[in-house]
């Protein structure tokens, strides 16, 4: 993966960014200071290690080629009483010195990168608390007074250029918050408070996934990070503070009735409605999100129908049960959910 190759990948990805939500989940995304420092350090390590590797292979090839010309003397006595000549001894010492100094250089480069990352993130302006649950992310924007606190799930919007500190908690097992294009991962451990600091540099949609095995649906515990311009972010924030819009069409009203009285309200919360369960993700602005079920599928009507009708066939083992809805109830619920922009 030469540097050149990597450069060509970046524009290609950007071009495809507009439509598909699986936009970009790779360390080459270079979308934040931390990711950029990772790439610089990674290239340094790669170059030095490649040099060391070529040295070993050169030595190997040379020693294979050297003796082959001297024929295949098979006699046993040949191998006895071989004093190692002093040249080899100095070669050994210099080899040790080269390896040692190479490693010291790499260690120092690593400490410098580590130091600069920590200092870049010293004065964070935005603070978010992400709580890991079995197989979805509960996101909460901390703000001065509670009226400004935004609660969402499986999706994070970040203003570009603004350092943000994400506090990580877990309600059950150990998860690991990792958005490759932005920064390194950090575990969410029950009983311990960890945090991660990101300074996004490039607008775009970036996908992340849980990186610590956390049970049946570890593979489908993803989240999407939307880096917006500052203006868009503020617009998004204001919109998130609004309660859920009241349903207009009769079908949506029937859906509202079902959602707030039946199973959904026990686990999910929708601001501005009696549904206030905290067991499942917050659905206040569900339809404005890009994915359903923690990144399992892109948001679309067809997928929404599939998910609400039988979540167990999409995420078997997920905590969301298959309610066995009647067709009319299903249409009503989906219609109402689509109004939650």
């Amino acid at each position: 993966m030469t540097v050149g190759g990597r450069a060509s990948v970046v524009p290609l990805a950007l071009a495809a960014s507009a439509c598909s939500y699986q936009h970009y989940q790779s360390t080459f995304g270079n979308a934040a200071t931390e990711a950029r420092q990772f790439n610089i350090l990674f290239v340094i390590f790669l170059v030095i290690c490649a040099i060391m590797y070529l040295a070993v292979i050169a030595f190997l090839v040379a020693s294979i080629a050297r003796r082959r010309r001297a024929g295949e003397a098979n006699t046993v006595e040949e191998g006895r009483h071989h004093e190692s000549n002093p040249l080899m001894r100095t070669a050994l010492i210099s080899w040790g010195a080269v390896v040692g100094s190479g490693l010291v250089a790499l260690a120092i480069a690593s400490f410098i990168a580590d130091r600069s990352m920590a200092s870049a993130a010293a004065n964070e302006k935005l603070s978010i608390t992400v709580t890991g649950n079995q197989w979805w992310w509960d996101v909460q924007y901390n703000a001065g007074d509670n009226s400004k606190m935004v609660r969402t799930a499986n999706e994070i919007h970040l203003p570009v250029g603004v350092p943000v500190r994400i506090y990580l908690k877990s309600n059950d097992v150990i998860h690991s918050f990792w958005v490759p294009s932005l920064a390194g991962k950090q575990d969410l451990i029950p009983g311990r408070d960890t945090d991660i600091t990101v300074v996004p540099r490039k607008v775009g949609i970036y996908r992340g996934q849980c990186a610590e095995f956390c049970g049946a649906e570890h593979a489908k515990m993803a989240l999407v990070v939307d880096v917006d311009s500052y203006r868009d972010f503020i617009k998004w924030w204001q919109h998130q503070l609004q309660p859920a819009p009241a349903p207009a069409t009769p079908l949506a009203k029937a859906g509202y009735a079902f959602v707030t009285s039946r199973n959904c309200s026990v686990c999910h919360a929708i601001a501005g409605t009696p549904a206030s369960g905290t067991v499942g993700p917050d659905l206040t602005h569900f339809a404005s999100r890009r994915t359903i079920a923690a990144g399992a599928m892109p948001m679309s009507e067809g997928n929404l129908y599939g998910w609400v009708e039988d979540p167990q066939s999409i995420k078997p083992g997920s905590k969301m049960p298959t309610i066995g809805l009647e067709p009319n109830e299903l249409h009503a619920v989906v219609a109402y959910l689509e109004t939650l922009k």
Partner: protein
Amino acid sequence: MSSRCRASFAFIAVAALVAGACNREERHSRAKPIGETVPAGESPDTIWPGGTVPQTLDPRAKLYDNNAPAISQGQQLFTQMNCVGCHSHGGGGMGPALMDDEWRYGGRIDQIATSIAEGRPNGMPSWRSKLTTDQIWQLAAYVRSLSGQPSKDAVSSRAEAMSNATPQTLAPREPAHTSDTAEQ
């Protein structure tokens, strides 16, 4: 006993162990939904006046009774649905205690499931429209484990929480009670 007969005994014992073990660990996260809401006609109430012979056990019982994943899900639901509010951790409070062997409405898993689904007088709400049948049966399986009825191997010793009760794995096992009211 001829050696052949003894061998067959051993085989049956092993098969029983195997069958028991298999069911205990089976995770029923069924991909295809079974259209099983509670049957249209309300299930007849499970209290039999005059202590007559209790009805046959509901076929779903063997999916949930003694099934470790079901009991574990029931344990999480028990806290998430705030059953702790009235029943605390099984010791009882506003609601009756679930750890003893006093069952006003029957201690069998299908009877407990009906109590949860239908609700009971004196404050037990009906959960049929709030929880799916699968969840109700999981809760019933966990409630039975609170009073020590399922086998010790299926229950968990503690939750990832403040230690609130002596471990179920050390509690003595209780025989399943059909319905106490009949005996009083």
